[in-house]
């Protein structure tokens, strides 16, 4: 007869393995794929669908042909290898026409210039993208330099050219090695100095892409010098805001009225320059990057100013910002592109022959800036009022408070939205096909498919272009996640 419930454990129990239903893969499958009847059905349907897709696409991918001169030849090879009626991908089109997808109708002997510009772009971006992280900065510069030089060697082998008995490609590789080697050395020894190159890059990139007289970009840079000089002369008497305005006006006068005369005169005295490439010859991813990168770089500061303008106490500034944002957001991008190609010409001073790519860049920038402004306004609204009050109470003026307190926090909150806008903008560059520019998706593919050898090819060019776009956009997305992690400050 048991009298009491006294219990003393003599031996402690050892930990045991969980039952198989709670372990590893089986647990995962049970929880995620077969947790209920409906889920089981959906899993099976999904598996069947995936199987059907793979069954249709896999032979096509496995039967890929890389070496052929026309679509007909591709089909013959596939029929010979895999029997009559077999399907196969004909990547030979990419192999033969890759340069058109990358550069459009850019002169072949000058392919090294956009390649160089592309490589230098990453060198210029490194100190901005990885600000304060000097090791990554240096590594990125070095890796980009090596890749650029390899690309240049590849291009010079693919399109051998001799100018006056000298191998032009070898010359380009040599020049690139010197320049990139120098920049890598700077990145290694004094990473902060690389920011000067970043500031200079727009002029360098422009000159590499379009070429022509060297005085053009120098004249444009001189406009910024005019701005700074006028600002410094007038800020003492007129204050910072009016001084900035005066500087901008002076620079605009220089760019619009004076620059062309001065650079023309300088060019006639000292005709330095390289072969000029017309905007018509731009195409493919070269075009997408020129429009996309320039518009991204310009629309962020413009979007910040618009967002601040929209929250301004000054009625005029506020009205202008709201008007601009709402108008631009309310009009389809395609309308704006048509405006760029047709209407803008009417509003500009007579005889000013504005480059079509430049016009498109300006309107794409406006379009993107309006969206960015609204994204940033969301970030501004999310900041507690106390932050503004603390900045005010410490005696910071408006611009100091914005720059040091408000923007670092508001932009951080807005990173996902901003990057989404940028990704959208980059993909929207393909819309320029509608105004006759050779974007990679529609413009170049149309040209390729119009060629007699490749008539009837369908999937391969689009898959190729789509993959490159995906790689670019996915990188941007990953970078934004890196940035969010890096700027995370609440360690709780």
């Amino acid at each position, binding site marked *: 007869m048991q009298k009491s419930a006294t219990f003393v454990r003599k031996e402690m129990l050892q930990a045991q393995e969980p039952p198989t239903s709670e372990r590893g893969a089986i647990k995962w499958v049970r929880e995620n794929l077969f947790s209920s009847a409906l889920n089981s059905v959906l899993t099976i349907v999904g598996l069947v669908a995936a199987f059907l897709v793979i069954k249709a696409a896999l032979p096509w991918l496995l039967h890929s042909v890389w070496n052929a001169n026309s679509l007909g030849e591709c089909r013959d090879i596939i029929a010979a290898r895999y029997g009559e009626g077999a399907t196969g991908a004909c990547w030979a089109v990419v192999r033969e026409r890759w340069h058109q997808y990358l550069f459009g109708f850019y002169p072949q002997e000058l392919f090294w210039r956009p390649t160089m510009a592309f490589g230098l772009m990453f060198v210029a971006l490194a100190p901005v993208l990885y600000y304060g992280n000097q090791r990554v900065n240096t590594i990125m510069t070095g890796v980009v330099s090596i890749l650029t030089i390899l690309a240049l060697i590849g291009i010079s082998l693919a399109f051998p050219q001799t100018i006056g008995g000298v191998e032009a490609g070898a010359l380009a590789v040599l020049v690139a090695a010197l320049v990139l080697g120098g920049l890598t050395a700077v990145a290694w020894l004094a990473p902060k100095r690389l920011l000067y190159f970043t500031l200079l890059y727009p002029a360098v990139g422009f000159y590499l892409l379009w070429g022509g007289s060297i005085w053009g970009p120098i004249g444009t840079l001189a406009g910024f010098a005019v701005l700074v000089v006028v600002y410094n002369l007038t800020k003492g008497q007129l204050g910072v805001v009016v001084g900035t305005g005066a500087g901008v006006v002076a620079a605009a006068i220089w760019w619009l009225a004076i620059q062309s005369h001065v650079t023309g005169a300088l060019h006639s005295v000292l005709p330095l320059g390289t072969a000029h490439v017309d905007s018509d010859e731009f195409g493919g991813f070269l075009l997408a990057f020129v429009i996309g990168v320039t518009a991204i770089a310009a629309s962020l500061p413009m979007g910040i100013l618009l967002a601040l303008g929209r929250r301004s106490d000054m009625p005029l500034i506020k009205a202008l910002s709201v008007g601009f944002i709402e108008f631009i957001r309310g009009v389809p991008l395609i309308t704006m592109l048509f405006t760029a190609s047709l209407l803008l010409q009417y509003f500009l001073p007579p005889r000013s022959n504005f480059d079509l790519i430049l016009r498109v860049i300006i309107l794409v920038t406006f379009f993107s800036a309006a969206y960015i402004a609204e994204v940033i306004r969301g970030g501004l609204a999310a900041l507690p009022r106390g932050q503004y*009050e603390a900045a005010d109470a410490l*005696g910071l003026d408006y611009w100091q408070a914005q720059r*040091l307190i408000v923007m670092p926090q508001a932009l951080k909150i807005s990173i996902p939205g901003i990057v989404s806008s940028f990704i959208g903008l980059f993909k929207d560059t393909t819309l320029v096909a509608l105004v006759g520019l050779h974007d990679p998706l529609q413009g170049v593919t149309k040209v390729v498919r119009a060629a007699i050898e490749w008539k009837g090819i369908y999937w391969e060019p689009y898959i190729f272009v789509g993959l490159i776009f995906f790689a670019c956009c996915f990188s941007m997305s990953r970078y934004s996640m890196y940035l969010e992690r890096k700027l995370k400050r609440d360690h709780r």
Partner: protein
Amino acid sequence: MSDPHAITREIDRSHMQVSDEVAIQITNMNKWYGQFHVLRDINMTVNRGERIVICGPSGSGKSTLIRCINRLEEHQAGQIVVDGTELTSDLKNIDKVRSEVGMVFQHFNLFPHLTILENCTLAPIWVRKIPRKEAEETAMHYLSKVKIPEQAHKYPGQLSGGQQQRVAIARSLCMRPRIMLFDEPTSALDPEMIKEVLDTMIELAEEGMTMLCVTHEMGFAQAVANRVIFMDQGQVVEQNEPKEFFNNPQSDRTKLFLSQILGH
């Protein structure tokens, strides 16, 4: 009288001297929020070295009053003169006053994206144009004073509420202000953290700082203040030295208020 934070320590009054020099002069000041008359005909003179506690029920306008002194709020009628500078819409005057007047907020309002040290050096560097190295030395001095020098390189989110509020006080002091405003500095804190913040404030008072403090800490008022101002419905109802104010309140409104906050 029961007060959970009664000040028991010895207060050193050797530097607590009220001079004849006027620090803040408010005359016939009125303020409206839309139709609502928040501050009604405020007249007040604060001499250098005074330690004033402003109390009153919520919505009585006490926070609004001290926020008018560095123009976080704008007054519509009357005059506010701080350190000889009148507050008008002139931005230069406002910036001048703000750099002389430190403010501590209920919710600390530290800058979460900057380290503690950067929080403290930001304004000296950008407003006072002090070299970074010197500003950092000053900041470390004040951070030691509020007893958290070892946290200098952390971010505000890593600190407790009491520590954050002490950083906020140090941040204000780094500008070497002549007047300090406190807007309910302990109201958002856990009980055990209130004491550390009050101690910091007492030390500040012992050094002779001119202080205006909106608070419900009556222990602090009794120990440190030389004047207590009671506000209700946007006006000053009663002001007196602490002993008289607490032991012998004159108006019925004051008596009711004191019985409610002290008399459990």
